[in-house]
């Protein structure tokens, strides 16, 4: 039985420098996993390789045992850290696009969630605020019935109401037949919903484990463990 995600010794360089430097880890189904790392640790690069937006230098990336390609894109829904629906005029256009390009798109669910957030189908996308765009994007991409959801810094720079909505949506979409992988460099807001964490530094995995087990073992919050792991210099790198 294949693991949902199997990454072995993954390497990828930029300008001669290794962004992913032998990354290895596996993920099962039915989990919410945090991919924790400082900015520049390789989180977005990893997501891009997993979704085929970047080629790898060496190593392997398998989703349900299949190499990255159109077949794996069927199973993955990638929610990037920037807005990707800017090319559409109205919300309805974006919904139609999702319906036409992704067979696993649940139109009813999307419409229901959009209505709950008081969006109308004929609203112009350009007129939405940054927080609203984040909401619409999350709704659309998480209305796909994917096996793996990749969320790139979903809580960065959003207001508290949006943050709460995002966490609620993650919890309600998540189920025993999918896994949500959330990349973030801020752990505090999201600790409670994580089953597992994978901490990466300099393009490699430094620590992986179940959250409650780590709490038991270290007697610390995941946030504290994360900070301890990544303290480079005296005085730490607390920049929140």
């Amino acid at each position, binding site marked *: 039985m294949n693991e949902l995600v199997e990454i072995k010794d993954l390497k990828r360089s930029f300008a001669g420098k290794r962004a992913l430097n032998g990354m290895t880890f596996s993920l099962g189904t*039915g*989990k*919410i996993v945090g991919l924790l790392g400082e900015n520049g640790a390789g989180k977005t690069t990893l997501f891009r390789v997993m979704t085929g937006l970047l080629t790898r230098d060496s190593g392997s990336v398998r989703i349900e045992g299949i190499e990255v390609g159109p077949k794996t894109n069927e199973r993955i829904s990638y929610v990037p850290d920037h807005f990707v629906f800017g090319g559409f005029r109205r919300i309805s256009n974006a919904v139609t696009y999702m319906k036409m390009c992704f067979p696993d798109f649940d139109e009813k669910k999307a419409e229901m969630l959009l209505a709950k957030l008081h969006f109308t189908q004929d609203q112009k996308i350009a007129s939405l605020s940054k927080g609203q765009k984040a909401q619409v994007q999350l709704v659309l991409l998480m209305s796909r019935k994917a096996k793996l959801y990749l969320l790139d810094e979903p809580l960065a720079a959003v207001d508290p109401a949006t943050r709460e909505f995002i*966490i*609620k949506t993650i*919890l*309600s979409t*998540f189920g025993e037949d999918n896994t949500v992988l959330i990349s973030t460099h801020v752990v505090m807001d999201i*600790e*409670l*919903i*994580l*089953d597992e964490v994978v901490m990466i530094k300099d393009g490699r995995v430094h620590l992986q484990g179940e*959250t*409650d*087990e780590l*709490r*038991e073992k270290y*007697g*610390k*919050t*995941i*946030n*504290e463990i994360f900070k301890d792991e990544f303290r480079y210099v005296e005085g730490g790198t607390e920049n929140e």
Partner: protein
Amino acid sequence: MPWAFKENRPIFQQIYDAIVIRILNGTYPMGSKLPSVREMAEEAGVNPNTMQRAMSQLESAGLALTNRTSGRIVTTDEEILKRVKRDYAITSAREFIREMQGLGLSKEDAKALLDESEVTGK
């Protein structure tokens, strides 16, 4: 009563304790049906797996039973509840005495303090 967690200890244990207290104080009455794992997880803002683990522990402790037709219900066994209540109370009491000893007070001093103190609220 909102859910409050200390993230430096296993969450599932804290959830378990919180549910037990809710059962003991009647928020989840005996024999009543507990909300689904998903509902409770969303309400508490935690991972459903973690909530599930706490629920499983409730079942092993005999505090909840899973019925195929009616879901999870709180036990109607008064003996178990009495025992659990006593266990929690004793733990709290021991904690209290330990704290008093930490302040340099004896058990007798602590008892006297109890008679003196008033607790406002529910």
